[in-house]
């Protein structure tokens, strides 16, 4: 067994180490889920079949987004950026394992830990209090794949932001820009089906849609057969494109970095 499964395992352990802290975060996710659900219900009372969703779909969507905040890390950030700032990256680059693969394994571990501790409470509370569309068994399997791809896309975007540190020496500006994009174009603030006309069409082709909107639609069972394959392929294509760009950026960064001292 290679080293990456261990990196994954330790990532999971590290991010599951503070269950009380995770529980408090999950509580806040649940509270926000309630407030956003009420807002969506009010809209769907006026427009009962907006964007092909009914009120139950909209409410379920809302609690899925809250459950995914942790695993998909919608607010951005990665420990790697700080390691580039303080120079620890030199140690990472010395390891006989690819930088991007190492951090992908670590991030998938983080996502798994977060999924275990933070995704349950909002979904459970939403299902108990509101009309809720539980996924069919075959959708659960598809959702698992979609979620894995969503985390990978999220990682690839955040990895590129961290790589920007090599040239900009500060990730706050890039973080701020990508935060706006990921909050707005993922479906986090409002489902993308609410976006009118061209804005909606554009939003649904951007990589951020692969992080929340597509997995949520898979959960809701809005894709069948070929459509489902198409949706997962959309996510996979973005993941491959962004990871490829990340690999190129890593190669460029290796040439850019000068390690002093001896």
């Amino acid at each position, binding site marked *: 067994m290679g080293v990456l499964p261990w990196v994954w395992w330790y990532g999971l352990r590290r991010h599951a180490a503070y269950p009380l802290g995770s529980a408090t*975060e999950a509580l806040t996710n649940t509270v926000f889920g309630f407030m956003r659900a009420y807002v969506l219900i009010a809209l769907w*009372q006026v427009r009962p079949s907006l964007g092909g969703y009914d009120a139950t779909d909209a409410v379920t969507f809302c609690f899925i987004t809250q459950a995914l905040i942790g695993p998909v890390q919608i607010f951005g950030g990665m420990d790697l950026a700080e390691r580039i700032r303080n120079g620890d990256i030199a140690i990472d680059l010395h390891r006989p394992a690819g930088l991007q693969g190492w951090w992908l394994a670590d991030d998938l571990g983080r996502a798994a830990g977060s999924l275990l501790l933070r995704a349950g409470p909002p979904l459970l509370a939403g299902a108990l209090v509101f009309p809720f569309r539980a996924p069919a068994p075959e959708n659960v399997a598809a959702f698992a794949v979609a979620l894995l791809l969503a985390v990978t896309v999220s990682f690839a975007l955040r990895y590129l932001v961290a790589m920007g540190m090599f040239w900009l020496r500060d990730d706050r500006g890039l973080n701020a820009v990508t935060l706006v994009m990921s909050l*707005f174009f993922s479906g986090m603030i409002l489902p993308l089906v609410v976006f009118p006309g061209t804005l909606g069409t554009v939003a649904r082709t951007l990589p951020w849609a692969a992080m929340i909107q597509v997995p949520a639609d898979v959960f809701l069972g809005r894709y069948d057969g070929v459509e489902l394959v198409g949706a997962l392929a959309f996510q996979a294509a973005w993941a491959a494109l962004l990871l490829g760009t990340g690999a190129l950026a890593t190669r460029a960064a290796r040439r850019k970095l000068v390690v002093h001292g001896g």
Partner: protein
Amino acid sequence: MIDAGRMYGLLVWTWVRAAAQYPVSMVLLALATAVVTGLDAAAIVLLFSQAPRIAGFGSSEVLFLYGTSALSFGISDILFGTTERLGYHVRQGTLDAMLVRPVSPLIQIATEEFSPRRFGKLVPAAAALAFALARVEVAWTPGRVAMIPVMVLSGAAIFGALWVLTAAVQFVIVDIHGASKSLTYGGGFLTQYPMTMFARDFVRGVTFVVPLAFVNWQPALYVLDRPDPLGLPGAARFASPLVAAALCGAAALAWRAGLRHYRSTGS
């Protein structure tokens, strides 16, 4: 009190000068903060692009609620937002260093890393409020005009008290920060929307338990001349300053109690 204000200003100025060492970064971050805060307004505009009225309210009325709420929350966040880091300081032991300095630890935490970028939060709030005030259909009387600054300042005081109250809880439960965000940031989100959207018991909770309804909802009922869905007496619409004062008193007591309760980590 005057001394505390002077000390607050002095520490703020120190941090601002530090932030100004990177002027481009400072301006860009202020812009970014403004855009992130403005996303909530964009959401409201998107909602109303799909329906002219939601829960009995039109877009300019909801933007009025958004403007007053975001302005109050922004002011309180600028003044007290960093108090949410108290748990971090307790865990790191840096609170002990604050306690030996001759300035109130509350002022030290509240001014920590004060950055002009935070003023970016006020830009979309003020713009939305100006837009909404120009558009909203209200028979303006002197009382209604005067209510606008009163509700913004009372709201800021209520949110400020919530920042300090939830920080004080971190003296007792260090890890509670994740949950207290549902009161602070959650309150900031909730008050952007009319309470007619929420379930009645929920509205009772945010009126009588955590008095978020007094941030802008009750005063807005007076300004917009709307009936109260809970049927509270008319005086409730003017109660915001009193509620704010009471909550600030409670926050001050809680902070003192928490500080006395604090016993460092030992060795």
